[in-house]
């Protein structure tokens, strides 16, 4: 590779020197994988500098993870795993946003990175779909894995299944009940099938 791997401290110093100390909200350097928590509003400009600067050159965005910490904690996080192919170094960045505990509160917002790494386009759509964080200025903010008219965001801590989806009962089988699903017991709905009335009842 081109030069010695940059350490985590040097990367942090680079960010602080370029954008000021207030942009790094928190850090954890002694963890299994160290990370920086950045100011949410300035995430995009920091990432643009990390991508473009010739000494950092983070050209590969590996992964974006959205985490819901639950209504008690009242916060949500988005975690970015950056990697630089020529320099072979990693960086984990994090932003934290307040959570909307009820549907009438404003949905949490994070600036998009899809203009820097195009791969962020689909990853951010997935985060939006799964935990319900909106990415500002994203070109195409739609759901990606769930259906477009699905209700709720499945990886939120307080997620509850909708009862019906297009007339299909969503808690599909009784295994749900055995596995701790606390819904109404399964009942046959709709018209009886041609076989249902011919089936013999057990004695």
């Amino acid at each position, binding site marked *: 590779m081109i030069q010695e791997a940059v350490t985590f401290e040097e990367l942090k110093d680079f960010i602080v020197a370029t954008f000021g100390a207030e942009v790094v909200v928190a850090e954890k350097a002694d963890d*299994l994988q160290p990370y920086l928590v950045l100011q949410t509003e300035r995430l995009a400009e920091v990432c643009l500098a990390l991508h473009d600067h010739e000494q950092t050159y983070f050209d590969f965005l*590996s992964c974006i993870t959205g985490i819901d910490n639950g209504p008690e904690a009242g916060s949500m996080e988005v975690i970015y795993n950056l990697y630089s192919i020529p320099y072979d170094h990693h960086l984990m960045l994090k932003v934290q946003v307040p959570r909307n505990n009820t549907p009438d509160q404003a949905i949490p917002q994070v600036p998009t990175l899809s203009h820097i*790494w195009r791969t962020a386009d689909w*990853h951010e759509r997935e985060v939006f779909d799964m935990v319900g964080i909106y990415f500002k200025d994203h070109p195409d903010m739609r759901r990606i894995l769930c259906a477009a008219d699905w209700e709720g965001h499945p990886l939120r801590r307080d997620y509850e299944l909708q009862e019906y989806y*297009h007339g299909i009962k969503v808690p599909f089988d009784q295994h749900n009940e055995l596995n701790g699903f606390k819904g109404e017991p399964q009942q046959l709905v709709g018209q009886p099938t041609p076989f249902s009335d011919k089936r013999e009842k057990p004695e």
Partner: protein
Amino acid sequence: MSSTLYKNYLLQSEPNKFSLDNLKDGEMIVNMGPQHPSTHGVLRLEVVTDGEIVTDVAPHIGYLHRCFEKHAEHMAYNQTIPYVDRMDYLAAMNSEHVWCMGVEKLLGTTNQIPKRVEYIRVLVTELNRIASHFVAIGTYGIDIGAFTPFLWMLRDREHIQRLLEWVSGARMLYNYIWVGGLYYDLPIGFEKRCQEFIDYLQPKLDEIDTVLLENKIFIDRTANVGILPMDVAINYGCSGPMLRGSGLKYDLRRVDGYSVYPELEFDIPTGTGLVGSVGDCWDRNYVRALECRESVKIIQQCLDRLQGDYKRTPDFDPQAACPKKLRTTGTQELYFRAETPRGELGYFFRTTDRSDVPFRCKGRSPCFSNLSVLHEIAKGCMVADLIAIVGSVDIVLGELDR
């Protein structure tokens, strides 16, 4: 159900990205999939065409979404391994290997794994890599009209499946690699059979080169089609044969050097534009074919060492290093990645204090990022070439949708 009602349901659940109002003169929207053999699973492509020319394409995914991440939040790490198998069902060993290495890193037991276990792990993952590439190249041949190589390659893949069935008891979804060890040692006589298979396979690889990759029709269909420049590939997060086909010598087995790969000798094949331009569909498939040869080399070295330095002993217990309780300490966050046949498979874990269940687990699928580049490289090609491009990405929808 009346047809209008059905149409409304379809449009509500998965509306089109492009609307009819914004089309230019002569353009139309063609829907491809989700149930179509050339989409390799349940992938729906919404294609805007101008006659025979594709002007834009939008993939709709999620038809095989099985809530892997939600399941993983409710189960202990070792119980999730069968779910991990079912993500990339063509290369289940590789997925298991990544998962187990990630969990071992969380537990801090990476260096306590016996060498024999590591070599067996690499042996079975490389066997599975060959099987996966065989399906990729074989079905790609079908996509563009070559049927015979597919049958030949499935015939040879069958031997791998039988070997792995002998090892683990299952043909495709193994649950063989456990956190800290293996389910069982290799069966007695496996090394000899595997050696026979390797000797059998090498001429077959030459045969595939001759009959498929050097075939004039195949070259005409794939050379200079779907050219993916290297900078675009990196920006879109492509990895694996997709990125190596674009000419970058980047393989996580070498870059990260996990497991026993630093002790093994193998090359990293890259696309060179031998018959067309660098990064076209032919290059991607050629890289896969060359990788099979490299995997054969790795398997040969593993077999030698499993019969030499790390020989079978009567008292060897592959489950000896398996932790009885998978308790992680403290709140930790880890992104662990490794190379599967399709590219960089990564798992992000966040643990909570003293629990064997992750607070959050995210799977970073290589196919997901690889497919997202589709609209970039498919613009301006013919509709028939779109099939060739989608096939050359080598998607497995189980992993893409998780």
